[in-house]
């Protein structure tokens, strides 16, 4: 049986949720989400250090989606927008949890998985060195992506990245990524 994206989304969209969205990930959507989450955190009088980290990680998470999202084929449009992604920002057990999800082609799964595992195996100093190396040696893609997003998220959160890849059909997997920012900084 294929992975049920909607059921998965409804499970995420529970508890103390600041923002939940599923659909087309556009530049305008990103602006709106950032504005809403920023004002929610101000309403909660969250301390500025945590607020900044959440904002930074949110920017990178959303822009990772924006840059890497698969344009879905027409036969999936009945159920999903063509640049379908999900985002849920919630408060879970002393952390802000930023979850994103998107379809990924099966042949790209291993590369991404290896990249995240490598990042998760690194300590603070190694991540810093990796960040600086990529910053200094890798060129931006035409769309402006630089391959730094995940490394930056790992550095800013100081936590491991949680992820799953669920088989959707013979072409696509659904990739879910959770980043956690601790309240007490």
């Amino acid at each position, binding site marked *: 049986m294929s992975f049920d994206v909607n059921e998965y989304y409804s499970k995420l969209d529970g508890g103390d949720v600041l923002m939940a969205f599923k659909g087309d990930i556009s530049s305008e959507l990103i602006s709106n989400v950032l504005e809403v989450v920023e004002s929610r955190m101000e309403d909660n009088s969250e301390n500025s250090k945590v607020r900044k980290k959440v904002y930074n990680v949110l920017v990178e998470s959303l822009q990772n989606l924006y*840059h890497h999202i698969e344009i879905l084929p027409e036969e999936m449009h009945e159920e999903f927008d063509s640049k379908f992604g999900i985002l849920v920002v919630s408060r879970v057990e002393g952390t802000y949890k930023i979850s994103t999800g998107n379809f990924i082609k099966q042949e790209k799964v291993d590369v991404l998985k290896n990249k995240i595992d490598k990042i998760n195996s690194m300590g603070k100093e190694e991540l810093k060195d990796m960040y600086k190396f990529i910053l200094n040696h890798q060129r931006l893609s035409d*769309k402006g*992506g630089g391959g730094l997003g995940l490394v930056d998220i790992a550095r800013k959160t100081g936590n491991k990245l949680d992820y799953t890849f669920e088989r959707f059909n013979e072409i696509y997997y659904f990739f879910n990524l959770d980043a956690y920012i601790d309240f007490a900084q």
Partner: protein
Amino acid sequence: MEALSIEGTAKTPSVKFNGQEGVIEIKGRSIPENSIEFYKPLVEWLEEYSSTPLDLTQVNVQLEYFNTSSSKCILDVFKKLEAIHKGKNEVIINWYYEEDDEDMLEAGEDYESIIRVPFKMIEIVE
């Protein structure tokens, strides 16, 4: 040469490059999805300025947020400044960060370790 002045937006910083005074300022948020387009005129301006720079160029970078797409373009801006500094003209980069914003301080230190230009880390106390 003509000054470069760009108003800030929710996703892009305000820019004031003044060649007469040798003062260069980038301030605000830099989080566009694609930063190449935004930073292109800045790098081009510096390219022109580097042919006849002042003895001292002061650079003020005061960013509240910047994304990883911008981080590469900011490096490109700094590389232009490094070339001016190599040409025996003084350049100072003042990197501002808000009190307790260790991530922003660290980001400044990352650049400082890559770019051969003197940096001054300046904490903004509210």
